[in-house]
């Protein structure tokens, strides 16, 4: 076996270990490479940053466990930004019933950090099927879509909701989503009721939603783990996404390295074979 063949026949398990290490080591020993902030993330941050204490934001955590890796850090960052500035938050989760668990996790964690009280500083409305109908109903009145909050209290008895009727009392809707539900928000809540919309989506989806940025239908957009890390940087509260970003960096480099090694082996091996063929 010559060197080229060796280069082309590394056991796949070695590759697997390398990939795993390129994620694990940066997590343990963060390099904290600088993260450049895109203008899409900055616009969203600035919009929320300009709100006054007491303003209300509707945050819809429309993702489920399968896209949690990318969406969860975004949700936490936005909640932290709101809570740290005294902005009140209404939370819904409209994509799938499985999303209830992840939404509640994010909300309770952020609320604990900032000692915020359910019913006074935030409300968790929960999930109802048929997102389009729910988004439209909330345009008329929150009580129409959600007579009770997630924990079963009557909306009339929740202090924070008093005086809030529909999107007109909301400064911005932010949807963090792993699915096409973002279209529903943009078309119905944004298009029909004129409320500004911001969004956080997975990396795969991000390219599909630039169109809404250009047309001004979205205030800002966070794309994938990178977008989440950008937001963590903006609110100066680095967390999971920032730590994960190092892993993402190194793992991407590792894969590119594999492609190059594989191709060098392939070409040199072909050349060697060709010259041998001529000799024989």
């Amino acid at each position, binding site marked *: 076996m010559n060197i080229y063949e060796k280069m082309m026949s590394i056991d796949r398990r070695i590759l697997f270990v390398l990939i795993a290490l390129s994620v694990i080591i940066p997590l343990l020993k963060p390099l904290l490479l600088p993260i450049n902030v895109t203008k899409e993330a900055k616009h969203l941050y600035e919009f929320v940053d300009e709100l006054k204490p007491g303003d209300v934001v509707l945050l819809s955590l429309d993702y489920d466990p399968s896209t949690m890796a990318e969406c969860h850090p975004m949700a936490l960052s936005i909640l932290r930004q709101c809570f740290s500035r005294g902005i009140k938050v209404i939370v819904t989760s409209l994509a799938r019933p499985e999303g209830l*668990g992840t939404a509640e996790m994010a909300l309770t964690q952020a609320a604990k950090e900032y000692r915020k009280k359910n019913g006074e500083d935030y409300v968790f409305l929960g999930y109802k099927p048929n997102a389009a109908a729910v988004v439209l109903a909330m345009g008329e009145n929150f009580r129409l879509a959600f007579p009770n909050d997630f924990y079963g209290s009557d909306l009339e008895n929740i202090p924070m909701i008093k005086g809030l009727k529909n999107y007109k009392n909301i400064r911005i809707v932010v949807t963090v989503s792993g699915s096409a539900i973002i279209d529903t928000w943009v078309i119905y809540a944004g298009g029909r009721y004129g409320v500004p919309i911001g969004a956080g989506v997975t990396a795969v989806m991000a390219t599909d939603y630039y169109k809404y940025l250009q047309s001004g239908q979205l205030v800002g957009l966070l794309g994938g783990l990178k977008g989440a890390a950008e937001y963590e940087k903006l609110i100066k509260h680095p967390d999971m996404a920032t730590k994960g970003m190092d892993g993402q960096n190194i793992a991407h480099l590792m*894969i590119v390295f594999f492609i190059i090694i594989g191709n060098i082996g392939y070409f040199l091996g072909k050349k060697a074979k060709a010259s041998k063929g001529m000799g024989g």
Partner: protein
Amino acid sequence: MAIQFFIPHQISLEVYRGALDWLMIIAGFTMVLGIGSLIIHHTNKLKHQGEGWGYSVVTLLGLVVMAIAGVRGMGIDTPFMQIFIYAQNPIQATMFSLLAFFIASAAYRAFRARSFVATLLLLAAIIVMIGRVPIGAKIWPPIRDISNWLLDYPNMVAKRAIVLGVGLGMISTALKIILGIERSYLGGGK
């Protein structure tokens, strides 16, 4: 049903919703058919004590436990959701993350610059992979803009052309089914 699209009238809307419901009901039965053949497959294995019949017990148990848990409702605190959160979801999420490893292995073994077009593909992939993470801008700043440009223009253009072609293909297949020209879904018997 194609005609319905152009008729906003209530009656037409009800026909449409009705048909959608019917399709869903039939799909429901088909789903049961799939689960039925799953159960038959595994009970057969059990009966013959075939290789790995123990795993069939696991499958059948999982199925029964989940179905029974579902009887008690689907809220966050129910056993159904708990099993979902702590068993079904981690396994599924982990299986998807296995792809990260397979991509690495495929990158090393399969992605060869065999031809000019394959080289184009590889280069675009590498640029996007590096350009989309912070370290890329550190190594070579313009790569970020290049990768964004690739995503915004050539990527969008190619997708649009494919979608146009696929769209026409889908419509003509649908027409052929309605006109009774396409019958291969019935098994090709003439």
